[in-house]
């Protein structure tokens, strides 16, 4: 079996990567190497590059960067909840406050609020609505990421209306 330089060089690389090379092919490669200076040089260079890459210095992750990671993970006060659930909890809390406010408002027949109190309540209500909006948006984003990431099968793909029904073998036999 005659081997070209391209074939021999591909095999040299596979051997460097520890891949099993078939005995017949290995013999053909050795034969080729005996008669080809260029491939012998290629093999020597590849081995040296392989060793050089393997001994590149390790890059230390800075200590202060690691501390920041710990602060934002294992040392974080909200570490028990994942990001998704934190946003859901925040949304639920805002909703509860809003509902409580409107509930008490029903029984407040004669409200006596100063203009300043009304103004402050308006600002707070706007802030609460803003937070609720952000939380909702965030939840939608997370849900969309999960759908796009294939973690969740969208309900749409389960809809089979209009598609031909798949009949089982038994049914076909019964029908005939």
């Amino acid at each position, binding site marked *: 079996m005659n081997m070209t330089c391209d074939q021999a060089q591909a095999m040299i*690389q596979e051997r460097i990567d520890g891949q099993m090379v078939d005995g017949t092919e290995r013999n053909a490669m050795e034969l080729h190497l005996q008669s080809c200076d260029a491939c012998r040089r290629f093999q020597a260079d590849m081995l040296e590059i392989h060793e050089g890459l393997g001994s590149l210095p390790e890059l230390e992750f800075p200590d202060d960067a690691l501390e920041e*990671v710990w602060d934002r993970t294992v040392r974080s006060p909200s570490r028990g909840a994942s990001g998704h659930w934190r946003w859901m909890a925040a949304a639920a809390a805002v909703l509860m406050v809003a509902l409580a406010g409107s509930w008490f408002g029903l029984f407040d027949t004669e409200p006596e609020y100063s203009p300043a109190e009304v103004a402050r309540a308006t600002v707070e209500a706007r802030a609460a609505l803003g937070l609720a909006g952000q939380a909702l948006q965030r939840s939608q984003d997370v849900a969309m990421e999960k759908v796009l990431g294939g973690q969740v099968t969208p309900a749409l793909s389960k809809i089979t209306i209009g598609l031909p029904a798949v009949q089982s073998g038994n049914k076909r036999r019964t029908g005939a």
Partner: protein
Amino acid sequence: MDTDTYQDLVVRHKNLVHGYAYRMLGNREDARDVAQEVLIRLWENREKVIPDSGKAWLLRTTYRLCVDRTRRKKVRSEVFGDAVLDPVADVTPNPEKQSAAGELGRAIEAALGQLRKEDRTVVLLREVHHTSYEEIARILSQPLGTVKARLHRARIRLRRELVEAGVTP
């Protein structure tokens, strides 16, 4: 994955994530940001990630974040030339390791920077981080044959870069 397992994975692989990000991006600040984000994402996904495949998950996530960042910030590969060699040496705390890398190591580092991003990533994953062909294929979402072909081509380009730089391996 419990807290102890998470911390163990981070301590074991933080330098790998940081080094891979640095050699992909060629920028120390970006590499630090990406590495932090990867390690934080591991925490956020701790219930899904299997500890045994933690290293693969970290490399896959680092690769994706590096690609995103390169796209977003248009980090130009040209800056990954000689200019980054000194910072690499700066952040290497172990002088013994640094000198062991030697002149060939420096030349290889510079030649790596001249490779295209796709070529550089396969060489880094295989040669520096000792990732199997199959795992590289999963990380890059490419067929096994493509990965092998790309790796072979990338090594040949690396050799050519070294020869052009006057370094005969």
